């Protein structure tokens, strides 16, 4: 059973008097525990697609099913609850909460979204802190750590709830090459350990090179699907 099924999705925006067709009849399926990348030039619809999959926006037409849920049917509160229980987010600018320490940032979704008991919370956080190599930095605040470290914390925060799907928008854009590879490797390792599906919207060839499935978008349509070790479908 596919984790994500998109069927003929359209997304239109009204910009002044002009209607912008950001997505036009997009359809695809993504399997669990896969490493997927949406690539394409700016304005091709990558981020729009990621926002729809992330339940942050709704399609203008078509059906999008994520983890057996038609996301168009969810109201505001249900969308938030769905994101909290099924999805993880990694942002280009890390988006850590500045008033919380590294430990507390990772703890946030367990505490404020999922109400996980303290003992289990501690166990999960410590395990992830060790996995992302931030155990010795756990009491620092975001402004006391480097960009790479911030992104590692953001990955840990995205994974701590054991989501089925992690969505990452340009996760390596603000990182140097060495740090970017370290982050990519970390995500692959997490995918292997936790069977989490990672979906990227990126220009970064380092990620594209590591992705197992690549969807190429142009002008709001998927123009190609490439699979590692497999054929390219136009």
């Amino acid at each position, binding site marked *: 059973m596919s984790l994500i099924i998109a069927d003929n999705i359209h997304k239109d925006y009204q910009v002044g008097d002009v209607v912008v067709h950001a997505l036009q009849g997009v359809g695809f399926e993504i399997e669990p525990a896969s490493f997927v990348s949406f690539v394409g030039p700016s304005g091709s619809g990558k981020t729009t697609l990621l926002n729809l999959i992330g339940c942050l926006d709704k399609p203008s037409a078509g059906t999008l099913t994520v983890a057996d849920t038609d996301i168009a049917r969810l109201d505001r*509160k249900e969308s*938030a609850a769905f*994101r909290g229980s099924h999805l993880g987010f990694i942002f280009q*600018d890390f*988006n850590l909460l500045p008033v919380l320490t590294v430990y507390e940032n990772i703890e946030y979704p367990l505490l404020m979204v999922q109400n996980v008991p303290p003992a289990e919370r501690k166990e999960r956080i410590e395990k992830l802190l060790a996995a992302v190599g931030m155990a010795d930095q756990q009491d620092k605040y975001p402004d006391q750590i480097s960009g790479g470290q911030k992104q590692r914390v953001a990955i840990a925060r995205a994974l701590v709830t054991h989501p089925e799907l992690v969505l990452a928008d340009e996760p390596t854009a603000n990182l140097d090459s060495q740090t970017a590879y370290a982050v990519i490797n970390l995500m692959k390792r997490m995918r292997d350990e936790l069977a989490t599906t990672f979906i990227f919207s990126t220009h970064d060839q380092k990620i594209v090179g590591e992705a197992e499935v690549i969807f190429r978008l142009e002008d709001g349509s998927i123009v190609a699907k490439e699979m590692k070790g497999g054929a390219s479908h136009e």
Partner: protein
Amino acid sequence: MNNLFKIAVRNLLRYKRRTLLTASLITIGVVFVLVFTSVTGSFKAMMIGQITDSMLGHLQIHRKGYVASIDNLPLNLNIKPRAYQKLTEALKAAPEIAAFSPRLKFGGMFSNFTETTNIRLNGVYPEREFQTVPLLTSRISEGKKTLSRGEIMIPTLLAKGLKVKLGDAVVVVATNVDGSVNGKQFVVSGILESATGPGGRDGYLHIEDAAEVLRMPEAEISEVAVRLKDFSRLPAAVRHLEGQLAGEVNKEGRPIFEVHSWEQLSPFFNIARMIDVMTFFIKIMLIAIVLISIMNVMIMAVYERIREIGTIAAIGTLPGKILSMFVIEGFCLGVLGAIIGDIIGSAIVLIINVIGIRFDFAQQKDLLLTTTLAPSDLLVISAIVIVVAVLASLQPAFKASRMEPIAALRHV
């Protein structure tokens, strides 16, 4: 909930200067209201105490219709001895009454044998009068603090005007209810300081002497001043006495007595009400200060943290929790301002008492204002500040909770 408080407090500490400025503004408002409430409240309580405890009593009972003509001191509207007997029984049976004093009031001429002027006099049983209005003795600036038959206490303005001293012989001449005139000689035994309000410039003599001057075989009673055990229960006591005395009717079936609290008898009540109105408007100003400052700071907080709001919303934080986060921030600001304001306000009130503010009020000179701050005032003002702080946070917090995460994340 603890975590929401933790995040709120850290966000407040994140913008220390702004938090400090807002809390200071609230603090200044709270201090101003507390000191104003304390000073005016103490002034009011003091003046009410002076009026009720040195002249009026807490309430008074008259024959029906007497108060409407009280300036004329109408002898034909006195309470007759038989009716007074019934009234005495009712008053003795009332558990809330500490003491009561019957008075025979009349107007007359006062002469030192060379000059004559008019005077208002109260015929009283001295012991009962002093029990009912205990501050009366403190108004006796010269002479003994008792009153025997044949003696008279006169107001200081009269004594000065007619150059009358203690021990001097004077004559009181009065017209009785039938229109005939009678006079009696008295010895001045006390000089009374004037007090503000009705009765503040009256003289006192023994009730039996008053009856003799007015040629009454048995003293009739113009008014009965009543002192309650608990002044705060005045309205209930008035209602109770009115109920008790409603059964006492004349031949026409109309009530014989009327009960009036000091508020209905003294013009100072209007000043007291004005003080209450001013206090109310000062509180409104405090509410406006808190409302504007908290709303301003919370609107800024929401605007500055749009991306953070987008992040926590994307992560799955429910709108209600986002709303709570900002409301708690406003709540904490309100609590901070209220606590500091309470501490500083209480300290200022204490300092005022240590310094000792003295003032004159009408004929009363050099009154010492002893300010007090009731715990209930602190609680009420703190509660107002905190509730208003929460209300002021609601709109920005609601806005934050309704923010679309996708739009918030795009915000630069």
